[in-house]
């Protein structure tokens, strides 16, 4: 998976030999099941320099801004209604993140 590729590439570039931990930010609207990610992680890291590494998940709550009245509010799913004016026209500000944040590796 791309997460392991990214981590291995960056660790190699930095002179790393074995990855201890990969920190991944997963927004709540990213469409990613953290349980599935964890389930796959040990399998996809086998035979790579990330084998045995810990997967640390940073959970980012979702936030939206109403395009009608400008109210900012927390979203729990990828659709919602403005709590102030009831509009469905929303701009998602946070929650779609799917990023490798940091890697920790042995030198």
């Amino acid at each position, binding site marked *: 998976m791309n997460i392991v590729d990214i981590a291995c590439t960056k660790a*190699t570039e930095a002179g790393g*030999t074995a990855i201890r*931990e990969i920190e991944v930010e997963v927004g709540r609207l990213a*469409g990613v099941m953290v349980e599935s990610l964890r389930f796959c992680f040990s399998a996809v890291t086998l035979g*790579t320099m990330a084998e045995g590494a810990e997967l640390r998940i940073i959970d980012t709550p979702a936030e939206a801004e109403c395009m009608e009245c400008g109210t900012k509010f927390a979203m729990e799913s990828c659709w919602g209604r403005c709590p102030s004016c009831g509009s469905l026209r929303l701009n998602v500000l946070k929650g779609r993140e799917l*990023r*490798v944040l940091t890697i*920790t590796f042995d030198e």
Partner: protein
Amino acid sequence: MCDSCNCGSGTPIIVKPGPDHHLDHDYGGHVHHLHDLDRGSRSIRVEEEVLGLNNKLAAENRAWFKARGIVVLNLVSSPGSGKTTLLEKTLLRLKEERSVAVIEGDQQTQRDATRIEAAGVPVIQINTGSGCHLDAAMVLRAAEALNPSEHSLLFIENVGNLVCPAMFDLGEDKKVVILSVGEGDDKPLKYPFMFHAASICVISKIDLLPYVDFDVAACRQYAGSINPGLRFFELSAKTGVGMEQWLDWLRGLGGAIGS
């Protein structure tokens, strides 16, 4: 099985219909084997988008298409919604009016590409192997091999799957989600990411409405609550009902030949 998590074993294959036309066998991951566990460790900031590479390639595809005046629609749906039949009927009508081309995506077989070829339209098939969606790298190679003419309308028929294709930008102008009335009218609520990512929703097989419990108004309301900007077409490719509105919209996309 899903190639997002590398649990699959196959590699995508891009082929033209007919025997022995494999264009590409060289798509796969790489494995590092570096282990030396007995030294100090340190952390570095990476801050890299997991889908960053796909998004970068999709942007390149978009520029490639735009430079040629090619309008690209990414057709997404669950399996069996009638994407290929809708395409066949659409192409038979449109091909006399403007240049059209198709990239077909399926896990296996060239059956869909063969159907499109029979309609007399340039087509190339991507077989994703165990993969559950097309990605921008596959589309780049397929588009280069297909080489659609300038100002053409290019349809990409994605792998039938209402989940993963929502996340993978291919460089298309619009995603068209197709939902047949044989499915549940609450599918937009169950698969909201796809209905959020799409800009067009085609409700297909409406000739079956007398026989199924599908509430079109409720479906449109569900989909509209997820994506208020969604534009709807209701049609039956089989009987032709509603096809004119769909074709008129397609006719209006980008420039026709010679314009």
